[in-house]
Structure formats: structure tokens, C-alpha cells
């Protein structure tokens, strides 16, 4: 009998936006039970990773707003294209995930971005984890394309924002 690894059939569901000098913003999609009143039994969620040379932190199973992937891609697109995204591109916010993405500064070839995430929902004192790094406009354009990996995730058109 041929050997079969069920994980071989698992689709690619990881995203990575790297920065210079070892920083990266990471996403991995998964489906979780819908704990809220809704017609859907399950919703898409993400593991969010902040990477730098001296630490790697992951925030698991974060729910997202409708249209999360589409809006994030549009944010990255504008950061890559605009001459001064720190002035022209509104911050990306997803209150469900607790994530904010902002352009801090830019050059002709690079953009410095700041990602902020709520460490723990429901905590008495809300604390945030922050990751700042510089990335290239080329990498941001690549990220716009790479986010499409979540488009047909289990027939969930995140671009359209429908739940599973």
C-alpha cells in the first residue's frame, strides 16, 4: 500500500512579510468554531506572528473582521505605491484581531511600518505588542500578491468577506 501523509493535502495557508535585518509579520489561517450567534458554524481566524532576530511571538486563533484580507492587501498596495505613505495611507485597523498597521516613514525604495496588536483581550489593563521594521516596496508588492493565498481558503472568499 502506498504511504499516505494526510498533511500532504493540506493547502498552503501561510503569509510572510519580511523586513530588513530579520523582522517579519506572519499570518497563518485556520477555521475555528463560531462562538457567536450566527448562521455559520465556523469562521476563519488567523495566527499572527511577530518575528525579530531576538524573539518570535505568536497570537493564536485571532478572529478577523469581514474583508480583513482585502483591506490589508489594499493597505500594503498603497504603502508600496504612494510616494509618502506615512502621510497618505490611513492606518489599517482590525478591532476583531486587535491589529493596527501603519506606515511610519519611507524612502524611494523602502517603507518603515509599525504593527501593533492587543496582547490579551479582556485583560484589566490592555497592553500592546509592537513591531517596527523597515521593508522594501518590492516586498510590499509581493505581500499584496501573497495575501491571495487566503482567497479560496476552504471556499471562504475573504475578499468578499463571507464567512464559511
Amino acid at each position: 500500500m502506498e504511504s499516505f501523509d494526510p498533511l500532504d493535502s493540506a493547502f498552503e495557508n501561510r503569509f510572510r512579510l519580511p523586513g530588513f535585518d530579520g523582522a517579519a509579520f506572519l499570518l497563518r489561517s485556520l477555521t475555528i468554531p463560531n462562538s457567536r450567534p450566527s448562521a455559520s458554524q465556523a469562521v476563519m481566524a488567523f495566527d499572527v506572528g511577530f518575528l525579530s532576530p531576538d524573539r518570535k511571538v505568536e497570537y493564536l486563533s485571532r478572529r478577523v473582521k469581514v474583508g480583513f484580507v482585502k483591506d490589508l492587501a489594499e493597505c500594503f498596495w498603497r504603502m508600496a505605491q504612494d510616494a509618502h505613505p506615512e502621510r497618505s495611507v490611513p492606518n489599517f485597523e482590525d478591532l476583531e484581531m486587535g491589529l493596527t498597521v501603519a506606515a511610519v516613514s519611507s524612502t524611494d525604495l523602502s517603507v518603515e511600518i509599525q504593527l501593533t496588536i492587543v496582547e490579551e483581550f479582556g485583560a484589566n489593563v490592555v497592553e500592546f505588542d509592537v513591531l517596527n521594521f523597515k521593508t522594501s516596496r518590492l516586498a510590499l508588492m509581493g505581500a499584496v500578491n501573497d495575501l491571495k493565498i487566503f482567497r479560496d481558503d476552504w471556499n471562504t472568499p475573504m475578499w468578499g468577506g463571507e464567512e464559511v
Partner: protein
Amino acid sequence: MSNFFTDLIPFNEGSRMTGIWCVSRKEEVLERQIAAVHLIAIPPDQDVSLEATFLSAFLPFHVGGFFGVDLESRQWIVLVQVGPAIEITSPDPRERPVSAMTVALARALEHNPNARCLLEFSFSHFALIDAYAEIDLTAQLHTWETTDLVRGLLAQMCGASSARVVVGREGNCAFPKEIHDCQGDVFLDVCQRWSSQNGS
């Protein structure tokens, strides 16, 4: 132009270097050092110059490297590390003098799953001296740290002659008779000039 790295690595025909870097001079260490050279394939949709700095950030022994692309847009990075040679204490073939740096690279590549290590080479301190064998200044090389031997070979990728590098190291300057943005280090001077002239 033929030099140590182009003779060593079977680059695809038409490959060209688009960037190069090396670290500042490191403190001299007394323990036996070994150099590891790895050729990494980078997907065409990634920014190879960014990925070079990204991977290097996870390599505590990294000394420098260079990157480029071939005629079919296949991107590559050559990473060079210098670290302690591991003393072999077991018959396990996976344990090699260069293991410390191989493990570091494997760890770095976990953060870029689409990059692949294609080739690995390792060189002892004396093998690196032999790489300069074509010049009459070899006797001076025996006083160099292993990292400087590697940095000198990287400088050859920029078109700098071994003689210029060996002489320039004494004065910490590659271009003493020219107006330039001196880095205070012959190897950094050479890399910086190449990068300026090639828009890197």
C-alpha cells in the same frame, strides 16, 4: 573574471552579482575557526537584497556574502560564516566541524520556508590562505584572522586585487590616494565602492 568564489560555485551561465556586503572587522579569536559557504536559492517573487539581510540577521557567525540573479531570473544568495570548528566526538556523520553554522542556517531558513540551501562548502583557516596562493604576499596572510581571509576573498568579487587588499589592510583603507568615503576598513571600502558604482 575568475576568482575564488566564481571558481568554487557552479553559477548558472550568465549569472550576475547584484549586491555584496561584509561585516566590520571582528575581534581576534584564538580557537580554531572554520569558514562555511552556503548557496541559497531565493524565489523570483522575493526581494533578494532584503532576504540577504533577513537571513543574515539569524546567523551569529556571518561575515558577509553576495547575491544575484541568472538569465532565467533565478535569484541566489551566497552566505559566508566563520565560526568555531566543532570537534568531532561521535561517529554520527551529521556531526561535522561546520555543524554550528549549518544548524544556524537551518534555523534561519525556517523563517523563509521558500528559500532553499543548494550547496555547502567549508574551509579551514589554512585552506583560505591557500586561496591567495597566486600572490607573493602570502606570508603576511598567516597573521590574519580567519574572518579577514574571508573578507579578502569577498573583496575579490568586487574586482579588487588580492595585492590591493593585502596592502590596504595595513592602512585600513583601500584607496589611500583617492578621495572617497573611507570606511576605515579595506574590505568595507571595496564593498562600498562596488555598491555605489552598481546602484546597490
